[in-house]
């Protein structure tokens, strides 16, 4: 097991290195210059001023040289300076990460719990009315655009009912746990609903397949109750493919919740990465994307470890 983890860690480092170069090159190949927007909005931005700023920000150097500088500093623990925020990258990254962690972890756990319950219930009587209802809900969750769902929630719970705040992370001058919770409810529910549909379909399909297996028939023949058969004998096996899907989703959640973050004004990683790419903030975009890659790699590693626990026949 230790050897496996070490090997995967080394692979992860190699992937991160390759990704850093690819991301840096792709951002560099995008049209335009980081200072274009400034030129547009600033009457004082003469060609001389722009040339001076390019030199200060190192934008007058070739792309490969800028990358090498970044890499050298990154290896020494310095992820560089965010041009748009005028702050070290870590100082921008950490608050965004914290916001995302709260949002993602809660919504992920919520959607996994919901998907497990709904997927199992649906799988018990495939084709029955309960299965039909759950499948309908799951497809609705998959199909409904997140921005529309978010907007509807704002209109119902904030505009009409005034139960919840429409956006933000806390009221100014409050910041209590209750206040934070109120601000989290709608974005968490939106994200959870969007993810639950897909997860439910996977759990259902995997459970239906597992419940038809020989060892389940044996477990029933041995006189085990239906609850024990489903939760102990079937669920553990059914989880193996589900874990892969969830692990992959977990990684993308860290960078992919852009719409939810934008709609509910949650300053998280998705929004930060998107803004930094648009504004050609190389250091920030690169660090954010690498972090999302790292989360994906780590969650996959955990998924692999979980396989061993779920199915002792799998050797790591």
């Amino acid at each position, binding site marked *: 097991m230790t050897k496996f983890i070490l090997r995967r860690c080394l692979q992860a480092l190699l992937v991160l290195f390759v990704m850093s170069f690819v991301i840096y090159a792709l951002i560099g190949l995008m049209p335009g210059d980081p200072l274009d927007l400034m030129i547009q*909005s600033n*009457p004082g931005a*003469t060609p001389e001023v722009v040339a001076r700023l*390019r030199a200060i920000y190192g934008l007058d150097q070739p792309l490969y040289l800028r990358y090498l500088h970044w890499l050298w500093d990154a290896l020494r623990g310095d992820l560089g300076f965010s041009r748009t925020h*005028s*702050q070290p990258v870590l100082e921008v990254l950490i*608050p965004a990460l914290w916001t995302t962690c709260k949002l993602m972890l809660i919504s992920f756990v919520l959607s996994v719990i919901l998907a497990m319950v709904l997927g199992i219930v649906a799988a018990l009587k495939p084709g029955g009315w309960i299965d039909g209802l759950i499948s309908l809900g799951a497809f609705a969750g998959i199909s409904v655009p997140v921005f529309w769902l978010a907007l509807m929630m704002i209109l119902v719970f904030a505009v009409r009912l005034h139960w919840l705040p429409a956006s933000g992370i806390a009221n100014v001058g409050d910041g209590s746990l209750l206040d934070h919770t109120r601000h989290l409810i709608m974005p968490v529910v939106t994200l959870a609903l969007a993810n639950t549909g897909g997860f439910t379909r996977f759990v259902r399909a995997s459970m239906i397949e597992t419940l038809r297996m020989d060892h389940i028939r044996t477990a029933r023949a041995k006189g085990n109750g239906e609850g024990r058969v489903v939760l102990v004998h079937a669920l553990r096996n059914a989880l193996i493919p589900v874990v892969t899907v969830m692990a992959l989703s977990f990684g993308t959640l860290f960078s992919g919740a852009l719409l939810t973050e934008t709609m509910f004004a949650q300053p998280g990683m998705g929004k930060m990465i998107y803004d930094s790419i648009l504004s050609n903030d190389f250091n920030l975009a690169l660090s954010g994307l690498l972090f999302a890659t790292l989360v994906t790699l780590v969650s996959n590693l955990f998924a692999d470890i979980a396989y061993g626990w779920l199915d002792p026949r799998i050797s790591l």
Partner: protein
Amino acid sequence: MKLRALAGALAVTTALAAPAFAKDDLVIGVAQFAPSLNPNIDPTVIKSYVLDFAIRPMTAFDKDWKLTCLLCTSLPTVDNGGAKLETLKDGSKGIAVTYTLKPDLKWSDGTPVTTKDLAFTWKLGTDPKSGFSNNHPWDRAKSMDVVDDHTAVLHVSPIVTDYNQWDQLLPAHIEAKAAEGKEPGDYLKATLYNRAPTTVGLWNGPYVVSGYDSGSQIVFTPNPAWAGAKPYFKRIVIKTIENTAALSANLLSGDIDLAPGDAPALTIDQVIALQAQNPDKFSYIFKPSLTYEHIDLKIENPALQDLRVRQALLYAIDRDTMVKRLFNGMQPVAATWVNPLDPNYTKDTATYSYQPDKAKQLLAAAGWKPGTDGICRNDKGDRLSFEFATTAGNKLRELQEQVLQSQWKVACVETVIKNEPARTLFGETTKKRSFTGLVMYGWSSAVGESPRKTQFSDQIPTAANNFGGANYIGLNDPKVDADIIAAEAELEPAKQKPIWAEMQKIYAEQVRVLPLFFRAEPYVVPKWLKGFTPTGHGDYSPLWVENWSAE
């Protein structure tokens, strides 16, 4: 049991319900966040808007578009003797501008604002390593004499008409440490405006930044050292909601009070729709601004080299109706780049009202006759067809584009829409002048700003100037160049006017650009907010925030 559950649900609902909103707070919703707050670095519209609550520039244009002093006792001009022409030691001509700072000005830690701060800011602003990029560059002043704590003379050279317009000062007693770095860009990394904007003493306006949640909101509270009129609101919050549909919903839910038009917030069509649905809930203001929406023509295109074709393009479009239908008539049709509210505006220019028949006549005279498919052709059989680009994803521009396309088609002109994301359009296509026909976008300028950047021949973007200019139309007219030089050097407003009139006349006659309209800034204002006055130019409404109050 059921009753207990119901009571529990009610209790939870009550606890979750939004608290009643007190009017000593004002929450403003914007669609962008100001990621850094140093007033002299990387100025953007949102940053300038935010800063106007807390730090005052030396001078600003007021709601009547008159230049006024905010930090000084009176505006120095040649007429009042505050500015005097001089010959510098190297023999060049210059102008000495004397400023006297208001005696009661203080930074938010109680330290007086003095000429030490002016000298510090000027010195830092003239240091190429500092990374300053403010609207009114400090290096216009080649030297500076400090007379006393409140009076100083800036020696501006060469002579420029904006000699008496200057931006925000920086507190020497706080920022001096950040300016100690020797390497280029050190100040950018060390300035407390970016690193710790809630530091006491950075601000000299009616409010100070007391909370800064990156990407989310900025909180202002009254500046205890402010000597001017006492601001009414105990707290002003600028909340960022990037999605404008969500921003609109936040207005309706009461989570935000005000959507400003002078900062990025709701678009004009969204405000018109909001007004139609909720006519009595808010006050709606549409303030014509300096943002000039227009279409640049690629003059190298053989068809566009003919003035008659360019004129026909303008005669063929009904700008008045377009503005009425799309924007409820709120955006004034433009004749040139100069806004009618600008002191240098002239109405004595060629105008091109909607005359489709005249457009067809001009095209026929230029050798373009309608073909069987309705599109004009010349003797060689070339179709009168142009690529027409604008910013992809900008709903309003795409709508305008469709209207214009259909109107030109009636006049036998084909336009092929080729939209690009803003980043590509401005980063490559206009910057490198690679468009082949028409390109539609908006351009913001300051009151009385010289058109040098967009019309002077040395501002045509080329590899030689590192694609630094914004003369995307490739205008290279010695007469225009001479007029720009003359307008920039003429200090007497009365003598400036005829030069500007000449420039506008040439612009309208040559039709290198198709003027569309001046964008109106759409404001959604709570009915209880009093004293709020939009300006329509780059010195935004919060510069007079101390006049705002709740009824």
